[in-house]
């Protein structure tokens, strides 16, 4: 029934995916179709993929998409069972329930089948434990991390020195607010702080969720009752708007990660709280602020260790016709030798960060990336299993690890954006978010499970 509906739904959507097929079946070399995201690290992987093809004679066909579209296309592909992609790029959010749904295959049998020499060479124990754990379901690993990140504060050391300010190693949100207000307009057209304002759970909610956690808020209590009417949640909403209104960039509704990066790189902001992976972009030759950026850990309030945890990872689609070849590619792209390949061919500052402990012991990487140790600290201290102060029934720092969060996060982020833009009162935005969360808890069967 579901299969029939799936095919019909594909027809309805006008999608050609179901007909497009994957690799050639008979004769000729194997071709793997890889769905990946269009960030710089993945583009480097694509650029270097000829090395893999040369040594294995396995051809690669990359489908490169922006994050939102990638998730949409790949979910459509695996959820409706069309099996277009052999290898999919998914995040820490997707991996556990994709594994549970059987959309991607467990990697444990593949690792178990490896000869010892190859298993030792890959060295799975070298993967950062927090990232590896986030890519597992029921103690089985379903994806291998390509790069990992947490979040941290970036600040302009020169502006801080001029204003006589000192950034602590782990600032509080109140300190960040005071710094931002003080530095707002210190130079013509310079904002005190830049923060994401674009709606979307992968946009504004990423930094904002860590703020909710810091203030002691939570999306759901331990019985899956939504927490949008709890005082700490309200406080976080007010604070995010206050810091943007008093010292942030004007009209933030269109500013996602890319726009915030452009603002910071062009020297138009004194502070930014965002992904650790940004550090290399801010220090890159084209950046106007290269060499003038300081780093601090994610801001705290009632709770510390609020930095998020994220990794883009590679997994094998369950309908792949070439899982063994796909596993070969997964190993190649996440192996220590790939790190060296990127370092030697592209540059050591461009090495994919946040996945392997050995990367942070490599002197060539450490000298090319002055921020490396802070990034490692941020990733290692991210509280993935216990993201909030009060108890919660979920894991995940900047998201709630349930499949419905894509939709719920989008809805809540829209409410937050409407509140920030002044189109909705706080009471109305929180009430609508509460109602949406309650609907998800009921329809998803979570409330029933808890009772």
């Amino acid at each position, binding site marked *: 029934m579901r299969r029939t*509906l799936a095919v019909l739904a594909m027809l309805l959507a006008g999608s050609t995916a179901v007909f497009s097929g994957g690799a050639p079946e008979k004769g000729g070399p194997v071709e793997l179709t890889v769905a990946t995201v269009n960030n710089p690290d993945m583009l480097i992987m694509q650029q270097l993929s000829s090395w893999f093809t040369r040594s294995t004679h396995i051809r690669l066909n990359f489908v490169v998409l922006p994050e939102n579209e990638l998730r*949409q296309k790949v979910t459509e592909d695996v959820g409706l069972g069309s099996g277009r992609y052999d290898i999919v790029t998914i995040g820490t959010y997707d991996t556990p329930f994709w594994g*549970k749904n059987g959309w991607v295959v467990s990697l444990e049998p593949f690792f178990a089948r490896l000869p010892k020499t190859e298993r030792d060479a890959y060295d799975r124990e070298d993967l950062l434990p927090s990232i590896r754990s986030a890519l597992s379901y029921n103690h089985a690993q379903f994806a291998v991390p390509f790069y990992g990140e947490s979040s941290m504060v970036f600040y302009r050391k020169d502006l801080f020195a001029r204003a006589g300010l000192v950034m602590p190693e782990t600032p509080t949100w109140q300190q960040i607010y005071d710094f931002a207000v003080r530095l707002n307009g210190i130079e013509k057209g310079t904002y005190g702080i830049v923060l994401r304002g674009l709606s979307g759970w992968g946009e504004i909610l990423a930094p904002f969720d860590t703020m909710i956690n810091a203030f002691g808020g939570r999306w759901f209590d331990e019985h899956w009752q939504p927490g949008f009417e709890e005082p700490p949640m309200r406080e976080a909403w007010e604070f995010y708007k206050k810091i943007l209104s008093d010292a942030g960039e*004007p009209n933030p509704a269109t500013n996602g990660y890319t726009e915030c990066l452009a603002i910071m790189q062009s020297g138009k902001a004194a502070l930014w709280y965002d992904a650790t992976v940004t550090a290399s972009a801010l220090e890159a030759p084209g950046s106007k602020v290269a060499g003038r950026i300081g780093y601090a850990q994610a801001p705290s309030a009632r709770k510390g260790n609020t930095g998020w945890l994220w990794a883009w990872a590679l997994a094998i689609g369950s309908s792949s016709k070439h899982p063994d070849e796909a596993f070969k590619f997964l190993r190649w792209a996440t192996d220590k030798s790939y790190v060296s390949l990127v370092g030697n061919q592209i540059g050591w500052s461009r090495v994919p960060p946040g996945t392997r402990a050995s990367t942070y012991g490599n002197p060539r990487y450490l000298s090319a990336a002055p921020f490396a140790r802070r990034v490692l600290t941020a990733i290692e201290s991210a509280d993935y299993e216990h993201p909030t102060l009060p108890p919660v029934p979920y894991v995940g720092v900047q998201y709630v690890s349930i499949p419905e969060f*894509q939709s719920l996060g989008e809805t809540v982020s*829209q409410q937050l954006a*409407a509140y*920030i833009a002044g189109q909705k009162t706080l009471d109305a935005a929180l009430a609508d978010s509460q109602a949406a969360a309650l609907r998800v808890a009921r329809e998803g069967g979570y409330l029933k499970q808890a009772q």
Partner: protein
Amino acid sequence: MHELNRPRSRLLTLPAIVIVAVITQAPILVTIGLSLVQWIVVRPDLGVTFVGLNNYFDILITRDFYSVVLNTALITLASLAACTVLGILFGLMLNQDFRGVSIVRTLVISPFFVMDAVAGIIWRTMMLNSSFGFNESFASLLGIKPVDFFGVYSLLTIIILIVWQWTPFFVLIMLAGFRSISVEIADSARVDGAGWWRELLSIRLPIIMNHIEVAILLGMIFVLKVFGLIYVTTRGGPGYSSANLPFYVFRLAFLGWNVGHAAALAVVTVGITLVAIFFLFRWFRRRFAEASS
């Protein structure tokens, strides 16, 4: 002889009719079928279950649905009104013979050939962005805060962008209408002492009324389906303040992965569109009947 052969000759058209029916009607029937089931793609453990009309009730009791319907009506009516007025004005202007008229015509019509997504991205980043665009440059020149086009004024911004993109289409049709008016009619109106306004209101506009109606009808069909512009500029927000029905369907289908809700909303959207077009058609027919009598 011809009468005897007619049923058999009609049989020859059957394959074509079947193919056309399958291509055009099957998706609608499938959508109606999907609207009666609960199917959340990201929760295969919940299965696919028949829920009757529950998906329709779920949608109709949601407050967001009514704000999106209102937005859709506002976007459509305001855009069509503005496009019609601007189409007539530009049509009149481009109907004149002056030096460089071909270049002006090309410039006026060019926005119509820019893809939705490209137009949206350019407007969002280069023109109206508060931190980089002309919006920021003008604001800093005047020493004021940039206008919040994608926040406070998101719905108005969407309407402006649609008008920018679709006015050329109206201009093309109006221009064709104006050019079809014979010189003799205009000359005789002037001989009878009609001024420019009188000639426009009593001669030119009534003559091109069928052009105006076709432009509005086609414009309505296109504007009701606008998606790309909203997707790349406001993503329907903040909140649902700039979302229209197609974008709402997209959000339910590809962010919520709730196939039943999305299908039910799609059916409702088609229903609303058909009703709107039906009334518009009826109004046009009356107008034609009055004009011809």
